[in-house]
Structures are given as C-alpha cells and as structure tokens.
C-alpha cells in the first residue's frame, strides 16, 4: 500500500533518548529524537509503549512538553510509586536507549494562539506539562494575547519548570504566573497556600472574558473542582477545556 494511503493511521515510531533533564526529585524531562516524526501542536500527547523481553507490553499516554522542533520530542514524566511504566522511564531509561511512541494525538486540548484571545491555564501537579508547551509556544509568537497560569502543587520542590515559568513571566508583562502549595510552604512563601477555589480562580483570572479560552489539566478531582469553579464564576463551559490524567493504559 502507498504510504500516503495510511497517513491517518498511527504507526509506532522508534524514539531514541538524546538528553535527560532532571526537573524535580520525581520528575524528569526526556528528550527523544524520533525519525519520521510529523510534528505536533501545543497540548497534544503521545502514546508510549514498552515491550519486555518476554513480549509483555505496557502502554501509557504522556503530554508533549515543548513545541514542534523537527524530530525532537520532549516528554516530562513524573514517577508514580505504584506505576508500571513511569518508574522505568524516570529511573532506568538512559541516553541512547530506544522506546516506541506514536502520535501526535489530540485536537481538543490544543492551543496554537490563532484566535488571539486571552489564554487561561490551570495546572494540578504534572498537569502543567501540556500547559507549559502552550506557554513555550506562546513565547515564540510575534503577537500574543494575555495569558495567566495558576499552578497547584503539594510543595515548592514539586513545582516543575519553576525557574522557566518565573522567567517567562518576568520577561512578559502580559503573562501572569501564580502558584499555590497545598501541603507545605516555605517560610518566605508569598503565593497561595490552599487548594484551588472560586476566590483564587477569580483573583488570578479576573471576571469572565467571553474571548478567553481556558485549559485545565491535572488529576480528575482537581480538574473537576477547577472547571466547576470557573463555570460557577460565569465562564462558559464550552470554553473551559479539560484533560484528566491518571493511571490509564493497557
């Protein structure tokens, strides 16, 4: 069959680790070189497949952390203690190793800045990864509307991309980044210190703007509290886009 005839289908591609960047004690960014990678849009994800020597296979989804850059694909992975795939990716995988991935996947949880409206982002834990891809993409746009990120984590040491997010906000008057630490705050902490609620969402994002698009990513309950909170403030439900993550896969 001609290759063009099967382009709609997903094929597994070999991805070689070319760089590993520690982000937090439990999180690493894995930079892959993927020959044949077709490119992707900010917010999209990939499926990763691992095959054991006995043929057993495990598959998980991971968001792409950086905008399209040729054959380079960056995944940021958090080690889940009872996980089947993430401990291998975070602790065992080394530069030069190869795994299989397929993608890009997704068209709903995607933002490329085309509509020019305000961008509102709400992240819970490693849910910040696809949102960081959007902010990294936005930083490269010639013209971008205002953006705000509210990022919830348990403790300061769990914040992924902290330095980069602060730098992006320092360099851009139209970008605001706010953090909340729900379990443990350092003594000099000036951010929020509680779980997200309507008051916090209202302070960070202001009164509802019908032109704004909001993306919420995190664990299921986090996403539902945030999305319900935004709709409760008057945001139109269809402009609040959600992505839940958890121990999926087969």
């Amino acid at each position, binding site marked *: 069959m001609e290759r063009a005839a099967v382009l*709609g289908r997903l094929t597994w591609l070999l991805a070689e680790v070319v760089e590993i960047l520690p982000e937090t004690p439990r999180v690493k960014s894995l930079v892959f070189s993927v020959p044949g990678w077709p490119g992707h849009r900010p917010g999209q994800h990939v499926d990763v497949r691992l095959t054991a020597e006995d043929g057993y296979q495990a598959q998980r989804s991971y968001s792409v952390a950086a905008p399209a850059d040729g054959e380079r694909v960056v995944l940021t992975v958090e080690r889940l203690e009872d996980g089947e795939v993430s401990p291998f990716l975070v602790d065992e995988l080394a530069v030069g190793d190869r795994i299989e991935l397929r993608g890009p*996947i997704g068209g*709903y949880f995607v933002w490329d800045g085309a509509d020019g409206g305000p961008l509102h982002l709400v992240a819970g834990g490693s849910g910040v990864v696809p949102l960081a891809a959007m902010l990294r993409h936005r930083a490269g746009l010639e013209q971008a509307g205002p953006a705000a990120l509210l990022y919830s984590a348990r403790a300061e040491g769990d914040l992924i991309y902290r330095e980069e997010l602060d730098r992006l906000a320092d360099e851009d008057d139209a970008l605001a980044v706010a953090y909340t630490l729900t379990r443990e705050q350092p003594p000099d902490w000036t951010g929020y210190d509680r779980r997200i609620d309507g008051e916090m969402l209202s302070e960070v994002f202001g009164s509802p703007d019908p032109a704004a698009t909001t993306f919420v990513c995190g664990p299921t309950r986090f996403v539902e509290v945030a999305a319900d909170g935004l709709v409760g403030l008057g945001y139109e439900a269809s402009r609040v886009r959600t992505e839940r993550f958890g*121990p999926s896969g087969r």
Partner: protein
Amino acid sequence: MESADLKLDGNAAGGELREIFGAEMTVVRATCAACGAVREMAELTVYAHAPGTVFRCASCDAVLVRIVRAESRVWLDPSGVSCLELLADA
C-alpha cells in the same frame, strides 16, 4: 486507589480511537442516545482500566461506547451514541 482516580476523559483514548478509525476522533461530537447531550469525544468520561475502554456521557453517565480487545481483534459497541458529527475535511 479510589474510583475517582480511575475516571479519565476522552483525551486519554485518543490514540486507541485513532488506531481504530484512522482519524483524530477526540474532536468528533457525539450525541448521547439517552439524554441527547452533544459533547466532543474528548469531554466524555472514560474508564480505561476495565478489560476494555468505556465511554460514558458527561451529562447523564449513560454508556456511549465500549471497546474490547482480544489478541488481534477489536470489538466496538457504539449503541449509546445516536449521532457522530465529524469535520468533513478531518
């Protein structure tokens, strides 16, 4: 692990849907045959830890689609969906 941790959404099934349909299905709008709610498939509730993948209506929780795999076969039961709306150029 609590059941809420196992509840995902249609984004998580994007790869499996594309494997079956050969198209990006998360932006396809599905009408629930039970309550009539119309949602993009990304917004449906998905339970992916079962022996198969189950899509439920985010409004009324009715089962919309079930996918079960065994070896080289896939069974897809779409009987909870009354209509799928696809982009013609997708």
